[in-house]
């Protein structure tokens, strides 16, 4: 399915309102991409070495999970790199729209709805979700509507539409489920491609650069912090945060992982792909790491409640999209707003 997304976004390159006609892949983003590919090569090598070791102390299931993760990252990097070479950010917006659509599908499939919700769901999938991404593609001029469409109009509409459908059983619960799905899978995620449209940087030097680097940096730090939390929990974990939700996430892993993410984030700023200096980048990385961990915990809680291991168990042969993007969903809006407020003139 991911490949389908990629090829779709390659085809659908109709520039809706292309503000940037230059290629998104510029020098700084190229360096960042190079760093990522080197890291992936190292990770792939490490995975293969771990797998070949017959009597290693590492659990083979964990090695397998690691290898699968690395493969998913390769795919994500490839898709992003391809979308960045398309001379319009609209390709990336379409890519994220498709990811949102798929994630929402997993979310709603997993959380039971009633027949009375059918028409509402139709609106959510085919009107609100595309509308949100159209607003993203219209850029900063539509910032205000983009940032309130779903939490203001969408949420009120959902409540009213379900009431009109006439089924009052577990009414509040059903509104909440659909709203949460829309908020996490569509609204929050749409802030990631919205990063591409940030303009009016306070740092004049960054204005000449492609914002693709910023998006790439964000995704990279989010994925990396997820991995570092996992690895640090394995290495020094003692106090599990919430054993009923995720038995492998510990406070030690959380703090150590966030710390390492901050260091890596500071170093990534040296590529010049972001408007941040090293310490600003470190702070931003901490924010992404904390929000990412929060997202993973919250999404795990939903999965535990529904009694599934991961969202991928719904569709055999596919990894769940939602499992891959849970950290991004929570971190994207916060990262976007902090960047917009402190690094562009729009924030004052």
């Amino acid at each position, binding site marked *: 399915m991911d490949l389908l997304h990629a090829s779709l976004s390659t085809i659908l390159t109709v520039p809706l309102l292309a503000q940037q006609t230059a290629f998104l892949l510029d020098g700084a983003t190229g360096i960042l991409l190079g760093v990522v590919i080197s890291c992936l090569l190292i990770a792939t090598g490490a995975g293969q070495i771990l797998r070949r070791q017959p009597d290693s102390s590492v659990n083979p299931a964990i090695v397998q999970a690691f290898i699968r993760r690395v493969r998913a990252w390769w795919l994500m990097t490839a898709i992003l790199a391809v979308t960045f070479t398309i001379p319009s950010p609209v390709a990336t917006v379409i890519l994220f729209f498709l990811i949102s*659509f798929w994630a929402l*599908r*997993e979310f*709603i*499939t997993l959380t039971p*709805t009633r*027949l009375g919700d*059918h*028409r509402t*769901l*139709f609106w959510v*999938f085919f009107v609100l979700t595309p509308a949100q991404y159209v607003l993203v593609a219209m850029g900063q001029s539509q910032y205000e509507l983009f940032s309130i469409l779903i939490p203001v109009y969408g949420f009120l509409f959902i409540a009213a539409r379900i009431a009109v459908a006439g089924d009052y059983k577990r009414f509040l619960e059903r509104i909440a489920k659909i709203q949460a799905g829309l908020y996490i899978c569509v609204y929050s995620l749409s802030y990631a491609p919205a990063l591409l449209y940030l303009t009016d940087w306070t740092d004049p030097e960054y204005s000449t650069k492609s914002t693709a680097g910023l998006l790439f940096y964000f995704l990279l730090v989010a994925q990396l912090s997820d991995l570092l939390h996992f690895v640090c929990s394995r290495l020094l974990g003692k106090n599990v945060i919430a054993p009923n939700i995720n038995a492998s996430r510990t406070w030690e892993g959380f703090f150590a992982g966030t710390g390492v993410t901050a260091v890596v984030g500071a170093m990534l700023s040296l590529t010049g792909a972001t408007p941040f200096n090293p310490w600003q980048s470190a702070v931003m990385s901490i924010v992404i790491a904390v929000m990412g961990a929060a997202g993973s915990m919250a999404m795990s809680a939903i999965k535990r409640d529904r009694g599934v291991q991961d969202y991928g168990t*719904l*569709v*055999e*042969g*596919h990894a769940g999209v939602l499992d891959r993007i849970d950290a991004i969903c929570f971190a994207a809006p916060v990262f976007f707003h902090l960047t917009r407020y402190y690094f562009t003139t729009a924030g004052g």
Partner: protein
Amino acid sequence: MKFNFTGPFLAGLAKVVAGSSVRWVDCHPDTCQRIYFANHTSHIDAVIIWASLPKHCRELTKPVAAKDYWDRGWFRRYLARSLNALLIDRENIKVHRSPVESMLKEIGDKYSAIIFPEGSRNDGTTLRDFKSGLFYLAKKRPDLELVPVYVDNMTRILPKGEYLPVPLLSRVIFGPPIWLENGEPKTDFLVRAREAVSRLRDV
């Protein structure tokens, strides 16, 4: 057979809309003559099952549909033809033209068919009792493999009375074939067939 573009297109569309993942449990796709019998929860069940078959099987499989509905207007007729559908006359049933007879005549010794022995759509939670058509099919053609199919979550994608689908994820599960045992009474067989379908829900 002339090359047909609409068929593969509809199959692709159905798969995208219903996001179906397909599983074969103790059963493999095969071009031998079969009757696929499934639970019925939505208009698009037949299309989804048909689309879930690999292409070479799909070309030899006819979803069974109601003639009074699919024979109305050129568009429905065109769709029915693209899907290779086998239209059954529900209104004009006579002894020498029973649905089972006409079905057997149409599939000949080449085609497989997809049928819904519940007769009409269930509410998605429980299977209705099976009608006797499946039994007579099995009795007249004991050589046909009867393959149970369970379609999951389709009610939520397109419930009864709705005409717009919501693109949730669904599952299509094919189970191990069954046959009519020698001298097995009708009711026993139908109960067994129904269980063969409902058992697939939990795999």
